């Protein structure tokens, strides 16, 4: 790991230089909010954002992604043969990834990159990408990253961490990928500087600004079926309208659905983000829906993130504490509240009658 200090001018020229070797993405203000976009010539990432409305998930894992093409023209030899689309990804760099969002990539990787299953689309895009993080000097009210395995200066999932102090950019180069990025930005030969104390000071202040916490310590020891049958699901799910907002804005939601679309004689097979909030999610071909009721779908989302994932991977919860689902849920379903309910749920003390809905 190397620590360097970059001034505003070197930052600007470095980002510009890096564009010759990478497709550079960064936060850009659009209408009222910030989104990650490819930066054109002389376009700089706008680092005045708190966090982007949508996470950078879609850069690695697009909402709609074509995987195969096919023809249904009977006169052709390749009729009904699925042909994989060219899956080559050129180097990308995402500037300004917040530490919470950075942690989502190692979490999602546990699903897409396993010995049994290799999702080449996700893996190739992930491997081609350098993650240049931006530490949070102060947290939002809905941030609970310090309860979710990271923090405002968290480094997991990042290749470079930038800490902004006034006009200075303290740059922590964490991985060889990060070194290569610094090299192409022209920051490679910069002298290492001793800014450790200053960074520590900023980090302590940032961590103190995280006002929201959740308890996750007891989730692992709970029995799955006790939580599954807990009496609070129907009441907590009452307000839910079963839209896909929480899952689409979530950096760690990874479910997708495969669809064929035929136009004339040719077609594409693609995958689109799916959402466990939708009635069609895992709707069987027979017509049977294992989660036919709203509360069952709400339960699935929280059980997946806060219990099934916890049990399966033993690496904490499938949530990074970014708070997007809390801020954007139209009916104020708050994962912090549900998580605390699950964590403190005690079958013995809760013999009360469930509120029906």
């Amino acid at each position, binding site marked *: 790991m190397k620590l360097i200090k970059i001034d505003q001018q070197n930052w600007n020229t470095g980002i510009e230089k890096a564009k010759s070797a990478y497709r550079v993405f960064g936060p850009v203000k*659009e*209408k*009222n*909010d910030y989104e990650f976009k490819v930066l054109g010539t002389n376009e700089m990432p706008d680092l005045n954002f708190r966090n982007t*409305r*949508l996470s950078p998930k879609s850069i690695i894992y697009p*909402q*709609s992604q074509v995987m195969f093409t096919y023809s249904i023209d009977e006169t052709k030899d390749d009729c009904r043969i699925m042909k994989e689309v060219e899956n080559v990804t050129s180097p990308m760099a995402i500037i300004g990834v917040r530490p919470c969002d950075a942690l989502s990539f190692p979490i999602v990787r546990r699903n897409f990159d396993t010995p049994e299953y290799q999702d080449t689309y996700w893996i190739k895009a992930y491997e081609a990408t350098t993650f240049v993080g931006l530490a949070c000097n102060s947290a*939002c*009210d*809905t941030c609970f990253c310090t309860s979710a395995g990271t923090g405002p200066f968290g480094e997991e999932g990042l290749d470079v961490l930038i800490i902004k102090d006034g006009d200075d950019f303290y740059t922590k180069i964490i991985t060889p990928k990060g070194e290569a990025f610094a090299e192409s930005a022209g920051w490679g030969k910069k002298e290492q500087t001793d800014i450790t104390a200053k960074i520590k000071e900023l980090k302590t202040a940032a961590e103190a600004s995280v006002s929201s916490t959740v308890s996750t310590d007891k989730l692992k020891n709970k029995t799955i079926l006790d939580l599954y049958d807990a009496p609070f699901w129907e*009441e907590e799910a*009452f*307000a839910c*309208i*079963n*839209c*896909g*907002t929480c899952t*689409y*804005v979530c950096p760690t939601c990874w479910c997708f*659905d495969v*669809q064929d*679309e035929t136009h004339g004689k040719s077609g594409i097979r*693609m995958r*689109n983000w799916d*959402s466990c909030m*939708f*009635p*069609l999610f895992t709707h069987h071909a027979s017509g049977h829906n294992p989660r036919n009721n709203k509360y069952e779908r709400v339960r699935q989302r929280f059980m997946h993130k806060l219990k099934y994932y916890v049990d399966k991977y033993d690496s904490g919860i499938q949530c990074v504490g970014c708070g997007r689902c*809390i*801020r*954007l849920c*139209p*009916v*104020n*379903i*708050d994962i*912090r*509240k549900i998580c605390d309910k699950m964590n403190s749920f005690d079958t013995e003390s809760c013999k009360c009658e469930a*509120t*029906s*809905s």
Partner: protein
Amino acid sequence: MKEYTEKIREIAKRLLNDGTVDMVIGFRKGTLPMMNQPHIATCTDSADELMWDSNCGLNLANYVTDRKEKIGIVAKGCDSRNLVTHVIENKIKRDQLYIIGIPCSGMIDHHKITAMFDTDITSVKESGESITISGNDFSKKLIKQDVLCENCAACTHRNPVEYDELVADLVEEQTDVDPYESVTEIESMDAEEKWNYFEDLISPCIRCYACRNACPLCYCPTCFVDESTPQWVGKSQDPIDVRTFHLLRAFHCAGRCTDCGACERVCPMGIKIREFTKKLNKDCLELYGWEAGLSLDERPPLDTFKTDDPDEFIK
């Protein structure tokens, strides 16, 4: 608003205790400022969670669709109009409902207020016609009228049209407002400008369907975008499919929409979805003299006909 809250709780407890209803649907306080949560109260304790303020903009008619119980429901003007529409469309029976009418002075626009400040808003306090917004290092007083949701600012049906009991005296209805101002502007555009306007309008859409799911009119057992045999609409981000969704949904609401604004309130991307439905509301008003949900005795113009229909083909 404190009086409203107290009255709602008092009525809810009475109705639950004397068995008039099995449940009361209203709002409870949310975990964030300006975010209240639809709530179902089935006992005295949960009735004490019921509350009212200017952040109750969701349409509660959405929560009674096809229910079989006897339901007490808190309803401002627009909710009551959607309850009327629900009754007309056989989604609930009038005698299943005990409507607790809320004379409404408008809901505040949390999107607009959030965008006014660079840092987190930690508290929003109402006092009469003023709203005090506070954060860690600021406090600002706003006039409620200036930060109303657009549909509330131009609302002409603030009082419930159908109710069993009111929580307060009726409020004065607004008469000097034009709900269709933006529609008139768009109507004056040429075809290309209109196309570009609507393309830009829906370009941020992520197809989460929050607008559809928050809408009390969207109760189809399977929405046309979810049909798979045959599949009418593609599921990707293809602009043709995104357009199809918004346009078809809007047309499906023609003559039924009460401009409650739930669709815009819930959109995570801040899309002004009412630009579609408002045009159809205006058409219904101009062609048929119709506004949705004002009477239990009349069916919406698009599922009936009259001999004085402005079109020739029907005669």
